[in-house]
């Protein structure tokens, strides 16, 4: 409970004061119950204003503060840190938004905006009056990590963790590690064989004594929470339990399989890019490319098969990103085998981004022809007769129809997410609308999931080329290290809590929790709900489901919320 509250109302330059009478707001609340000090600032977030507030907190012996300024999205952490520097508990600080939710919203009526600002500040004061100091929960962490998926991302991640002294367990569902990369042949940009890359990693891993690899393995059960998960693994017929601090998902992708008759798929001379790569790997005889016993002279490629299907119901809307570079690279490999090949690229956009643009230019120089098609007018494939015939509207010749005969048609197929429903049921990992794993924020927190301690990396998160996959797995490794090396994690204390004497153990709350943080325990011969604070996100979903009001979120207790409502109602009279 705070009894000596400081209230600071911000002008925000003119952002607030142009539409709200800031001085009037300050005067209106200065004598409210519990308010010991009230002041206005031109810019509350400025260093000088923060120093002044710290001095005021110390001199006036304040035990709670309210700052009426911008959205807490912007400066909640700024002011919580300021409170902490002044020796105040940061959870006895309340930010009242009188900018986005008041001055900016009511630019037409200063009087009403001022009245509303007073109400909002009063509610903030009431909440602070009922606040109690909270301390972050400290959870000890286990210095081990579980990596699900033994492709290049998973293996490289394991090595990175091993370097930092973290024991890495890698589980791979297949009998051999290496994922998609092990059988894709030569890969760009360094012209190495995918299987060689995997062998290099395997050799390095064998030298380490802090990496364990389990093949034919899957996760069957997960308990615990960030820093201390207990995972049951089935490796072959053997069941074992691993105690890990974090879980990294590098479950990869699978190549899109065209539907029967999609651009002629099913015809023996219509193959996917993945098959074409295998063909190139197995036909290294200089001067000729042989497929099904026939010498290939003309190859056509159709891009964006299974990608960017905006017009198709249930189509994959996303761009698979890697395929343009991959097919242009494959086309150069084919030229290396037989420089007299005729190659026709039928594309929608060439997205050979970054340095891979060179592959595109090199193909142009070597004589490959490019035809751009619209999503509305896809190329028409005729499989009658001996050769495959493709009709495409050439945009460079004002959409004139061009007939391209070829011996081999390569469908440039993108990536689709692996089917991991069993795993996802266990981990509750969120999946995006394209069925890949979802990160918290694509720019600011790109490898973290909403579940603390579970990270995602590689193509499990969305189409990526090899170097991008490894880059993201390195990111996941460093996020894991920053979590585990310290030995503990601090968790936000604003989580749900059970008022034990009110709980009747009716279990109605159980299904309202999306994170499975609620379990039931026996306490004084009574079954009651119990919240695991390390799993709870403080979303408050359980609170309205409880018929006994036995659940509340710390920092937003019933007493606080009710007092806020009451203080607003008082003003309305």
């Amino acid at each position, binding site marked *: 409970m705070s009894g000596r509250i400081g209230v600071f109302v911000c002008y925000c330059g003119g952002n607030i004061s142009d539409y709200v009478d800031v001085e009037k707001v300050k005067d209106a609340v200065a004598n409210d119950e519990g308010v010991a000090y009230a002041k206005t600032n031109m810019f509350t977030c400025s260093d000088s204003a923060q120093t002044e507030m710290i001095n005021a907190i110390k001199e006036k012996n304040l035990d709670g503060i309210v700052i009426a300024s911008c959205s807490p999205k912007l400066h909640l952490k700024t002011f919580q840190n300021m409170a902490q520097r002044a020796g105040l508990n940061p959870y006895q600080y309340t930010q009242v938004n009188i900018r986005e939710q008041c001055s900016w919203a009511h630019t037409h009526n200063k009087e009403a905006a001022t009245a509303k600002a007073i109400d909002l500040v009063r509610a903030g004061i009431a909440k602070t009056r009922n606040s109690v100091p909270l301390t972050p929960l400290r959870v000890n962490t286990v210095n081990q990590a579980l990596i699900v998926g033994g492709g290049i991302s998973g293996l490289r991640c394991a090595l990175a963790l091993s370097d930092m002294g973290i024991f890495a367990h890698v589980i791979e569902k297949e009998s051999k590690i290496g994922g998609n990369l092990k059988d894709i042949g030569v890969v760009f940009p360094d012209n190495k064989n995918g299987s060689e890359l995997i062998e290099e990693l395997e050799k390095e891993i064998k030298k380490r004594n802090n990496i364990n690899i389990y093949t034919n393995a899957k996760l069957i059960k997960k308990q615990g929470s960030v820093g201390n998960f207990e995972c049951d693994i089935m490796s072959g017929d053997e069941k074992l339990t691993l105690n890990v601090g974090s879980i990294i998902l590098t479950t990869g992708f699978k190549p899109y399989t065209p539907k029967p008759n999609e651009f002629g798929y099913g015809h023996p001379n219509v193959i996917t890019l993945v098959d074409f790569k295998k063909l190139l790997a197995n036909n290294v005889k200089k001067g000729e490319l042989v497929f099904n016993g026939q010498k290939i*002279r*003309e190859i056509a490629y159709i891009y964006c098969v299974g990608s960017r299907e905006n017009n198709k119901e249930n189509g994959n809307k996303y761009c698979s990103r890697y395929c343009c570079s991959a097919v242009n690279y494959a086309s150069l490999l084919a030229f290396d085998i037989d420089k*007299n090949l*005729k190659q*026709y690229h039928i594309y929608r956009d060439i997205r050979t981004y970054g340095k891979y643009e060179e592959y595109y*230019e090199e193909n*142009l*120089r*070597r*004589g*490959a*022809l490019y035809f751009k098609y619209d999503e509305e007018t896809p190329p028409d494939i005729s499989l009658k007769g001996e050769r495959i015939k493709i*009709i495409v509207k*050439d945009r*460079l*010749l004002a959409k*004139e*129809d*061009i*007939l*391209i*005969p070829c011996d081999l048609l390569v469908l440039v197929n993108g990536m689709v997410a692996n089917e991991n429903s069993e795993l996802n049921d266990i981990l509750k990992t969120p999946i995006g609308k394209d069925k890949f794993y979802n990160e918290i924020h694509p720019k600011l927190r790109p490898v973290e999931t909403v579940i603390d301690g579970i990270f995602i990396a590689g193509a499990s998160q969305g189409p990526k080329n090899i170097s991008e996959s490894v880059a993201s797995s390195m990111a996941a490794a460093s996020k894991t290290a920053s979590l585990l090396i310290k030995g503990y994690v601090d968790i936000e204390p604003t989580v749900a809590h059970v008022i034990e004497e009110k709980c009747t153990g009716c279990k109605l709350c159980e299904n309202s929790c999306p994170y499975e943080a609620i379990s039931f325990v026996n306490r004084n011969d009574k079954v009651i709900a119990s919240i695991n604070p390390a799993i709870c996100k403080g979303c408050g979903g359980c609170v309205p489901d409880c018929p006994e009001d036995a659940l509340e979120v710390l920092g937003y207790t019933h007493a606080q919320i009710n007092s806020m409502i009451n203080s607003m109602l008082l003003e309305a009279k």
Partner: protein
Amino acid sequence: MIKVNSGLIDKIKISEDFNASACFNCGTCSALCPVGFDILPRKLFRYVLLGEEEKILESTDQIFSCLLCRMCEEQCPHDVNITENIRLIRNYLAKSKLGV
């Protein structure tokens, strides 16, 4: 409809200097041409690459009216040897079509 004839390009491309396929259709060449071709170089090259002999024959006069001034070539962002390409197309037309 144009049927791609991949054989033609091999006949024209008697020299490694022929690099019409590097053209990426930006149009810079046409903007600077003092003669003002009716058929744009990029379009001509496209027909050559597709093996559309008829369209090339239709443009014979144009092809021979080029001054080979190299104004276009100087400005080409993709280093296409435009005048050399024109010379090689002339060479092909003279030998196999015009009976010179």
